[in-house]
């Protein structure tokens, strides 16, 4: 951690606060929207949707970077349940605001930002280290591939 922290971030993004707080962790990035109910297994924190590029991959403890929510209105309830099972993401960055994603972020109580100055999906890769300071509206990104 310390070795990462003393290195200045490779990229800094600005966005609008959805849910306040600070979170730092490894990014999990997808270009595909995610279904909540019926699209994830809340017990394991994994995506289960057939044909999804994150199928069988867990977002638990990750900074989830994705376009947004789709599918069932059970989105918030499914992601809220991951808070109970300890499989919630650490934080979220999404680019398209929907009621599903916004409410899901609120009840998961994880730091979340949207409405960015640049597209985080283009700039963040899975495995990058990301720090969200949602109160400051700031995302710090350390690329994993530029050691």
């Amino acid at each position, binding site marked *: 951690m310390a070795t990462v922290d003393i290195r200045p971030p490779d990229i800094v993004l600005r966005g*609008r606060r959805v849910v306040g707080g600070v979170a730092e962790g490894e990014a999990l990035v997808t270009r595909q929207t995610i279904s909540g109910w019926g699209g994830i297994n809340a017990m394991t924190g994994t995506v289960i949707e057939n044909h999804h590029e994150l199928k069988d991959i867990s977002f638990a403890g990750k900074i989830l970077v994705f376009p947004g929510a789709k*599918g069932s*209105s059970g989105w918030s309830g499914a992601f809220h*349940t991951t808070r109970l099972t300890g499989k919630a993401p650490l934080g979220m960055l999404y680019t398209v*605001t929907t*009621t*599903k994603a*916004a409410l899901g972020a609120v009840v998961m109580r994880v730091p979340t930002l949207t409405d960015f100055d640049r597209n985080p999906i283009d700039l963040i890769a899975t495995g990058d280290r990301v720090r969200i300071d949602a109160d400051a509206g700031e995302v710090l990104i350390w690329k994993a591939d530029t050691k």
Partner: protein
Amino acid sequence: MVRLSDDERAMLDGRDGAAVARAMDLLVRYAEALGAEGFVYTNNVAGVPGSSPQWVKDYYAADGGDYRAVFSRFDLDSDDVVDVPVIQGFACHLQGGMDPDQWREMGMSEAANANFRSDEAEVAAHGVQVLKTCTPYLAGNVPVMGEHCAWMESSAVVFANSVIGARTNCEGRESTSAAMLAKRIPNWGFHRPEGRRGHHSIRVDVPVDSIFEWGMLGYYTGWAVEDAIPVLEGRVAAPSLIKHKHFGAAAASSGGVEMYHMVGITPEAPTAEAAFGGARRGERFAYGAAERRRVYERLNSIGDSRDVDYVMLGCPHASIDQIAEIAALLEGRRVHENSALWVFTSRAVKATAMASGHVARIEAAGARVMTDTCSAISQAVPPGTRVAAFDSAKQAHYLPAMMGIEGWFGTTAECVDAACTGTWAGRLA
């Protein structure tokens, strides 16, 4: 910044009790998350207030592990447990976890059923109408054009917005439970005229007239526009309630469509200009023979074995005319010994279907008519199910992934044939 009226401020400050204050607090956080500036009043809320499986109650054991604990902690996302008052407005409970009578056949335990009955008694005692369906508009909650609602259930939301012209976002469990108490919902998205204008065009080049074709077009539509508002024009014909029901459910599943316009068909689209709120904009898609085939192949890409051991109809919950059709298709036939046929609907529609003789005819063929739920919601299929068949693109989208089974998609008649022969013989005509 969310602006509160004096009344809303008083609710937040506790004038109407702790539960209403917690509800307003959640709604304010939600409105901020959306970037909404205020609220609309709503007296039409559809959700699943306080209903939970036993493990969720156990999770809140330290808080009493009861309905009150779940409603406070989970539904209202409250930091403390509060008394939940009787709801004063019009609110209904959407689908639930099991059939109230045939739960054993669904594989539910005595304990799960006791939990289900206890939750239902609490829901009723709190003044929520027990509709227990994903199609409230077929069971006693039909909003009117322009009415602000707070509804869950993506297929009901897209129906309310598109077919009726009511105004609701795709709400979640927590926002609907809060709205039942505070009678407010963020003034965002579909509550605002500018949020209802079309984004993209879809030109329909092949005839789409049956429920099967409408469902496939819906699945394509969600694929094409994701969560945007499509404006469909062209060869869409013979609209009916059940066709809209299947179109919308499919579009909400493959994408996140919460409203669509069909020019000359839906109420806010007398013309393309009206649907777009001005000049046509966005991307232009075309649905032709190639797209139609691609949708069909995608929906049938998770089927391998043709030995169908389960056919599920009634997604979204079957209307009375669909149940009559199923009864007619089963006339003089029996469900195959290696297969099962379950038809899901609401209690209200089942009562009508019983009075009309349809349920007796369906049961005489060895099939079941179940209420409240569906296989996806309850995660219940007949024991040993490996291969299922559906006439709903939505169910074909969800259930195989959720249950780890194979699935086929076809017409209602093909599904009934599969149930009676034990073999899938569907094909794209």
